[in-house]
């Protein structure tokens, strides 16, 4: 018998909301948006956690510039506090090493991490999901029943097709979808908005393609001042019981 499932419940007991940032497709900005969302929420004095569940390709530490290196072990694993955000990532454990993990290992590592990380009291835990409809997604549906899914998409046809699969899977599994957020918008287009309408979930607006993002990466103050984060700030409103507020 695996005691860790009971452990997960205990560890997430004082986490009020879990927002899982997903989309199914890689490279659409899930990690940027997860990192930026954690930043925006913590600016609003919400106690915020950020869990990078892309175990083989963690990126949040690069966006926010938090130090890697083993987290401390005190009655569990302590998230690393960075600009007020409680962060947890595989990068803490492995630095720049590759972490080849088969699905079963992904599932096991994710369960272990959830069972021993002491988030403490959190208003929101932002979970940055990896691409694909694999172990991490199925485990989020299985173990994080209270999770609300924030689906990211871009206007590209290949992205829309993949995100459509993801929305269909979320809807078939009765998941709670916060809405669909367009990223890297270059020109006015309706693809993402139509996709949201098609699944009867809120369209949360568009974040611009931001040529200055690369320079701001790794520096929280500069990141907070980019047009893309400014747009996200306007889009998210106050996270309250009613979810994201439309601007």
């Amino acid at each position: 018998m695996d005691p860790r499932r009971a452990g997960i419940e205990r560890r997430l007991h004082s986490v009020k909301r879990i927002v899982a940032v997903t989309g199914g497709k890689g490279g659409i900005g899930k990690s940027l948006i997860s990192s930026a969302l954690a930043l925006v929420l913590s600016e609003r004095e919400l106690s915020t956690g950020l869990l990078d569940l892309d175990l083989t390709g963690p990126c949040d530490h690069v966006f926010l510039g938090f130090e890697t290196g083993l987290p401390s072990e005190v009655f569990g694993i302590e998230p690393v506090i960075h600009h007020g955000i409680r962060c947890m990532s595989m990068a803490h454990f492995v630095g720049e090493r590759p972490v080849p993990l088969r699905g079963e290992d992904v599932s096991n590592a994710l369960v272990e991490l959830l069972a021993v990380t002491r988030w403490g009291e959190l208003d929101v835990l932002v979970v940055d999901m990896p691409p694909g409809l694999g172990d991490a997604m199925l485990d989020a549906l299985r173990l994080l029943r209270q999770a609300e899914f924030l689906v990211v998409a871009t206007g590209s046809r290949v992205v829309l097709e993949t995100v459509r699969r993801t929305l269909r899977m979320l809807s078939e599994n009765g998941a709670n979808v916060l809405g669909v957020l367009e990223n890297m918008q270059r020109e006015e287009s309706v693809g993402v908005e139509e996709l949201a309408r098609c699944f009867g979930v809120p369209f949360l607006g568009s974040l611009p393609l931001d040529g200055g993002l690369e320079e701001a990466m790794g520096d929280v103050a500069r990141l907070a001042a980019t047009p893309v984060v400014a747009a996200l700030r306007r889009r998210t409103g106050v996270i309250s019981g009613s979810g994201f507020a439309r601007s």
Partner: protein
Amino acid sequence: MHELALAEAVLDAALETAELEGLSLLTRIEIRLGELQQIGKETFGFVLGEIMPAAEPRLASTRIDVVVEPARFRCRRCEERFCMSQAVGPENVDAAEAIHLIPELAHAFLRCPACCSPDFEVTQGRGVSIHAIEGE
């Protein structure tokens, strides 16, 4: 000392089982500690004792047995079977500590002794599991 979090999980799971099966007393819990995770048998037993809730009558006279299960590996690349002492690495203390926290990090730090692949299966002895819960 992240062992405490795992020990709490063990007690929660045991009490859940007691609830489900309508037991008013848990007489024995057998815990297996996988060698890969390197959790000390004495440490874990001690931690469990410390957090045993005094106010919980179902745990009032529970015997706790802690057994260490040796780790065994099978390489998916070359089919070699090996044990902990044969695995290549971990090369330093941080690697051992990482595996202690998340046993799957074995795939980042350990290698098959025959072909150097990180693509091995942990066939036994990964981490903490509950082997038996007895009660009445």
